[in-house]
C-alpha cells in the first residue's frame, strides 16, 4: 500500500488520507513516518519561504506533524483533502508563530484554529466527494498559465506581500495584482461547477 507510483497524484491523495486514518484508528507509527517523510520537509520549505529562520521552520514542521498525530481523529476525509488539511494545520501554526514573535501573549494554536472554524452549513459542493474536488483543483491548477501559477504559489507564503512577489518575479505590482485576480477568477470558475 505504501508503494503506489509516486507520480500518480490521485492515488497520492488517497494514500495520504488512508495514512492519516491509520494514525487516527490504530496509532500506526509507520503510517505516521510516511506522512512525516513527505510533509515535514515541505512544511519546512513553506515556513522558510514565509520568512522563518531555518531553525524555526524546522521546529514548526515538527510541531505540524505532532498536530497531525494528535488531531488525526478529527480528519474527515469526506470534508477535507489530506494535503489541504495538513496545509491548514501548517497555516495556523505559522500565524501563531508570527503572533509569538510580536509577543502577543494570549495567542495559542487553538485560538487561531477557532478563528478559522467555520460554522459549516450545507456546502454548495456537499454532494461531491473530496477526491473529486482534489482532482478538480489539480486540473484547474494545471490549466493555469505558468505566470499565473507562480503568483498563486507565492500568495500562499506569508510576508510575501504583493510588493515582494513583484520584486521576486521582477514584474510591476499592478501585474501581480491582475495576474492574481485572473488566476483566482479562473480557479473559481473551474471549481464553481460544484455549486
Amino acid at each position, binding site marked *: 500500500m505504501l508503494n503506489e507510483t509516486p507520480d500518480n497524484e490521485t492515488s497520492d491523495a488517497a494514500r495520504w488520507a488512508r495514512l492519516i486514518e491509520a494514525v487516527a484508528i490504530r496509532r500506526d507509527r509507520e503510517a505516521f513516518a510516511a506522512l512525516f517523510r513527505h510533509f515535514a520537509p515541505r512544511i519546512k520549505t513553506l515556513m522558510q519561504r514565509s520568512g522563518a529562520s531555518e531553525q524555526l521552520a524546522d521546529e514548526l514542521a515538527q510541531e505540524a506533524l505532532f498536530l497531525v498525530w494528535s488531531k488525526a481523529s*478529527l480528519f474527515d476525509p469526506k470534508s477535507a483533502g489530506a494535503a489541504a488539511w495538513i496545509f491548514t494545520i501548517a497555516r495556523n501554526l505559522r500565524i501563531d508563530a508570527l503572533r509569538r514573535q510580536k509577543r502577543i501573549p494570549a495567542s495559542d494554536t487553538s485560538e487561531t484554529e477557532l478563528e478559522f472554524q467555520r460554522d459549516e452549513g450545507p456546502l454548495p459542493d456537499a454532494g461531491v466527494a473530496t477526491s473529486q474536488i482534489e482532482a478538480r483543483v489539480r486540473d484547474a491548477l494545471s490549466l493555469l498559465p505558468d505566470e499565473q501559477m507562480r503568483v498563486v504559489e507565492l500568495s500562499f507564503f506569508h510576508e510575501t506581500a504583493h510588493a515582494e512577489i513583484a520584486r521576486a518575479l521582477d514584474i510591476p505590482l499592478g501585474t501581480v495584482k491582475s495576474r492574481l485576480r485572473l488566476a483566482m477568477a479562473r480557479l473559481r470558475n473551474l471549481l464553481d461547477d460544484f455549486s
Partner: protein
Amino acid sequence: MTVHHHPPDELLGAFAAGTIDLGQHVAIATHLVGCAKCRGAVRAMEHVGGAVLAALPPSAMSDGSFEALQRRLDEASETSAPVQRRGRAFSDVPGLPEFLGSYPDSSWRWIAPKVHLRPIRLPEPSATRVFLLKSSPGTRMIEHTHTGFEMTCVLSGSFVHAGGQFGPGDFDLGDGSVDHDIRIDSVDDCICLVAMQGDLKLNGVLGRLLQPLIRM
C-alpha cells in the same frame, strides 16, 4: 438569505492562505457566516494550498528531528474534539463569527445623530480597525471617502449607495476611489460590521465638525 455582493476572489484566497491581518480576517469570516458559496470557495482555496504545499521542493529536516518527535508522541494525548468557543461577547448581535465571543465585549456609543458605534477590540495590534455600526432607518451617512479601504458586512437591515443595495450577508469593499453616499433604506436598524484601514475623510462642513468624534 440571498447574498448578492461577495468579497473579491483574491481576498478569499488570501483569507485561505492566512496572509491577511486579523481585522480583515474578522470581516471575511463574518461574510462566510452567511455565505455558503464563499465558504465553498475558501475550502477550494485551501485545497489549492494543499496542492501547493504537496508540490513544494523538500528541505532536509534536522538530524534526529524524527526521533525527537517520536518520543513526544508517546506522551501525546489524543485530541478528539474540535476547540470550542469561549465567552459570550457580542452574542446579542446575530451573524457574527463565534470566535468573537472571547473578545472583550463593548457597548454601543453615540457617534452622530441616529448612528451608534461599538468597537471590536482585537487581541493583537492590527492596522485594520473593526467596529459595529448601527444606523436608524432613513439615516444618510455623511458623504465620505477613504484614505485606506473599508470592508462592510451587513448583519441586519440594508443600505443603498451607487453600487447597489446591500442586505444581510452582503459584503461591500470600498477604497479611496469610492465616494460613499449611503442611505439606510430598511424599516429596522441597519447593523454592519466594518473593518477599516486608514481614515475616513468626511466631506462638507458638518463632516469636518464630526471628524474628531468619529475617529476611533
